[in-house]
């Protein structure tokens, strides 16, 4: 019972931790000299947003944001995220300062203490102290970084089986104080192993080993052995690392003082925070990290007791529930769904066999995989299996699945519970149920069947749209489209009511002008003025949008200025017609000019019509 207690407490703390965001604040170092700076790190775990925390105001201290980092981890399908905010803390005076609890998203950290003494004797500089690298930093370049490959099973087994998938973590450790600018993704040495779904971006963490702080980049992947043999597992990666250099002797007065508690603590590069390092001189080095070769045997799968339907699945699996109609007819296609879940090489997990064997014709199953982790080791694969019942009768229907269990080292066959299904109809053979060309291939046969007939083939295998005859054929509808456009334009112009009226008016006016010319020749005053009036009536009718015959002398006097040419022609026409006045034959020419001028003025373009209206009446009077 006693060993369970810590586990329970750990689980409980994890559950509580997941319930609400957590905030953690650290200040390092907790004692500095005046003019130096400390690093304040605020880490928000499980936060829903990346809003920076509210920093308290502390008299004598100033906080300057120095960076932000975020981290998302997916472990066994569970996602956790944290956001880190880094601040540089500088003091304006000596003394002991208390930084109150830092709040963010309903969480608060513990209060922190910072002691500032006068050892440094350097005026505070909010921009930092470029070049103030610790005087006695002593980084062992041999131990700057190293690479480690860890198996999820902690090496419980000294062997893998061919095809078996096991999750691994490849961790690159970099001493804090170094700047890692470029890191390649790790690769495995040799060709005996392959990596599956190696994570794109490494997870970042910090850890302490032998009292030294390291930044750890972790990649997760599935490892599988390709060929049998005694192999060694080792990984390699390349990185560009900036190593802090010894300070310039000329800057010796600006050195950070040694700790009053002894040199070793602050000599550790861990205390050279990222932003401190930023101001230091760094030597860039290309390094290649190789992990220690880990002996790992790869064994072939045993051939003894290998089930006939074993298809390469290695791991530990279980079958989920399935559903099937309780009544069926032979030859009627149905779709059955069944799920295989567990851990192992899911890319080799094929559809379970439907039971009773030999009573069904099955076709290629569709499948959908729900991953349970990032490397595809834990998953749930659901198969949708089309099947046709071949034999009538009452059958107990279920599924079975064969796999190799690498832990027990033996082949296992698991089955679902069976369900009674009544199948009616006549017995049909598997050949009769074979798919026609165009249908999905049978699962029992690796390939879809051959086509029975050569079928039709195009005269020219090139696509139709590249063949000239096809393109030429398209010219017919294209020409019809163009013709339709032309016809529409023509019709719009020809059958437009305004155009029709205009053409009729022009025709009538032309007729009357011709009559007017004939009457002038024959000195027929009555006919001359009648034609003049009719021509003007037609022109005015179009303008006023009324019937020509309806325009009278009275309309003219009301709508046109008094004494206009039109009014005078109308008045003269009335006088000739009703009063027997005979105009001077010599004046016919002037009257004709007057009529034509008036017609032109009325028919003037729309843009100038308003001006014309003003001038109709201003035509010079005949002598």
């Amino acid at each position, binding site marked *: 019972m006693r060993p369970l207690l810590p586990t329970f407490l750990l689980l409980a703390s994890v559950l509580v931790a997941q319930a609400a965001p957590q905030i953690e604040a650290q200040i390092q170092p907790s004692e500095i000299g005046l003019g130096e700076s400390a690093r304040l790190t605020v880490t928000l775990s499980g936060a829903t947003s990346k809003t920076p925390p509210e920093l308290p105001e502390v008299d004598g201290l100033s906080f300057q944001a120095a960076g932000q980092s975020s981290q998302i981890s997916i472990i066994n399908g569970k996602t956790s995220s944290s956001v880190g905010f880094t601040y540089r803390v500088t003091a304006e005076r000596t003394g002991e300062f208390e930084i109150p609890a830092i709040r963010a998203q309903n969480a608060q950290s513990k209060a922190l203490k910072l002691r500032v003494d006068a050892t440094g004797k350097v005026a505070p500089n909010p921009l930092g102290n470029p070049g103030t690298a610790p005087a006695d930093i002593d980084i062992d370049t041999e131990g700057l970084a190293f690479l480690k490959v860890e198996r999820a099973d902690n090496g419980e087994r000294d062997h893998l089986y061919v095809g078996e998938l096991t999750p691994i973590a490849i961790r690159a450790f970099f001493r804090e104080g170094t700047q890692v600018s470029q890191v390649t993704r790790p690769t495995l040495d040799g060709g005996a192993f392959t990596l599956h779904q190696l994570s794109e971006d490494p997870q970042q963490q910090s850890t302490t080993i032998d009292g030294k702080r390291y930044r750890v980049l972790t990649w997760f992947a599935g490892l599988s052995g390709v060929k049998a043999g005694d192999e060694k597992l080792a990984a390699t990666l390349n990185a560009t690392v900036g190593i802090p250099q010894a300070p310039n002797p000329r800057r010796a007065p600006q050195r950070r003082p040694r700790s009053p508690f002894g040199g070793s603590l602050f000599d550790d590069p861990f205390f050279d925070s990222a932003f401190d390092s930023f101001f230091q001189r760094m030597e860039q080095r290309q390094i290649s990290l190789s992990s220690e070769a880990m002996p790992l045997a790869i064994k072939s799968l045993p051939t003894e007791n290998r089930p006939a339907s074993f298809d390469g699945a290695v791991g530990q699996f279980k079958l989920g529930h399935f559903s099937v109609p309780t009544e069926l007819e032979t030859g009627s296609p149905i779709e059955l769904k069944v799920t295989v879940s567990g851990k192992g090489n899911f890319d080799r997990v094929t559809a379970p066999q439907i039971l009773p064997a030999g009573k069904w014709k099955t076709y290629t199953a569709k499948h959908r995989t729900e991953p349970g982790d990032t490397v595809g080791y834990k998953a749930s694969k659901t198969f949708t299996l089309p099947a046709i019942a071949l034999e009538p009768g009452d059958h107990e229907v279920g599924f079975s699945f064969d796999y190799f269990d690498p832990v027990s080292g033996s082949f296992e066959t698991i089955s679902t519970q069976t369900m009674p299904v009544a199948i009616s109809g006549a017995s049909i053979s598997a050949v009769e149920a074979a798919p026609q060309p165009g249908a999905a291939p049978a699962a029992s046969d690796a390939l879809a069947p051959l086509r029975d007939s050569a079928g039709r*083939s195009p005269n020219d295998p090139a696509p139709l749209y590249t063949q000239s005859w096809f393109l030429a054929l398209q010219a017919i509808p294209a020409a019809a489209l163009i013709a339709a456009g032309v016809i529409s334009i023509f019709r719009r112009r020809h059958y437009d009511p305004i155009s029709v009226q205009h053409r009729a008016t022009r025709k009538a006016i032309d007729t009357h002008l011709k009559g007017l010319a004939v009457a002038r020749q024959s000195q027929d005053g009555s006919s001359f003025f009648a034609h003049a009036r009719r021509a003007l009536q037609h022109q005015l009718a179009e303008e006023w949008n009324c019937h020509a015959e309806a325009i009278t002398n009275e309309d003219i006097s009301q709508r046109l200025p008094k004494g206009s040419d039109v009014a005078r022609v109308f008045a003269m026409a009335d006088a000739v017609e009703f009063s027997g006045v005979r105009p001077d034959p010599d004046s016919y020419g002037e009257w004709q000019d007057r009529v034509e001028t008036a017609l032109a003025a009325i028919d003037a373009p729309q843009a100038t019509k308003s001006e014309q209206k003003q001038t109709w009446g201003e035509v010079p009077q005949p002598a």
Partner: protein
Amino acid sequence: MKFKLTCILPVAIMAVAALSYHLAALGKQASAESENAFASAKRAVEEENYADAIDGYSSLIESGQHSAASYHNLAVAHHRSGDLGRAILNYERAAKLDPRASDIRANLERARKDSAILEAPAPGYERMANSLSPNAWSAIAASGLFALGLIAVGRAMRLLDWPSRAIRASATIAVAAVTLPAAALAVQHRASEGRAIVTSADTSLRVSPFDLAKTVTGLKPGKAIHILPEKHGDFHLAQLESGQKGWVKASEFENTNITAK
């Protein structure tokens, strides 16, 4: 009596659409001689005499029998004989002629799986464009253009007394029937232009166009490559899906486009 298109137009459009579709699918029916040769090659596959089967189907194709069935069965013969490169090549050609055939797609998928070739899934619009053959898309576009022309003429000649809303709707459908297939054909053309399949077992993507040039990477039979226009002697510049470029010998790949011999 004035001739009206009102009732005739829909019938005419449907008739042309059907005609175009059949025109697209239509081809010469295999002669009795071709069918015999086809059956003989099929028997050879069933008897596991793959060399004869491959010769038989290849001869049929060279004689002009460019049917999906010929390419599919040729691919199966290659597949069963273990030549996965040529199997994938001919499955792809068969799929071009009959993109909706699930047996071809299933076998192609199987061949890629057998050769451990992972093809990145095509984007959705490309999958939609590849749901019909180029000829089917061409037929739809031709029908749409015909309908558009007929509606336009009927409207211009006042032979169509539909309400203007109905005319507008019909014209919109016809325009869509032209533009969508045109877009699909453009996508298909872009995806298939220069697409080739590695058919030789010892194919390398070389740094420069020489036999002894350094290898960028090895190419498995069945691997799809994109052949670029640059050529040097027997070597063609090729690009992989990853963007890597290099030179490949002409004898080591075949274009997936089907051309008359």
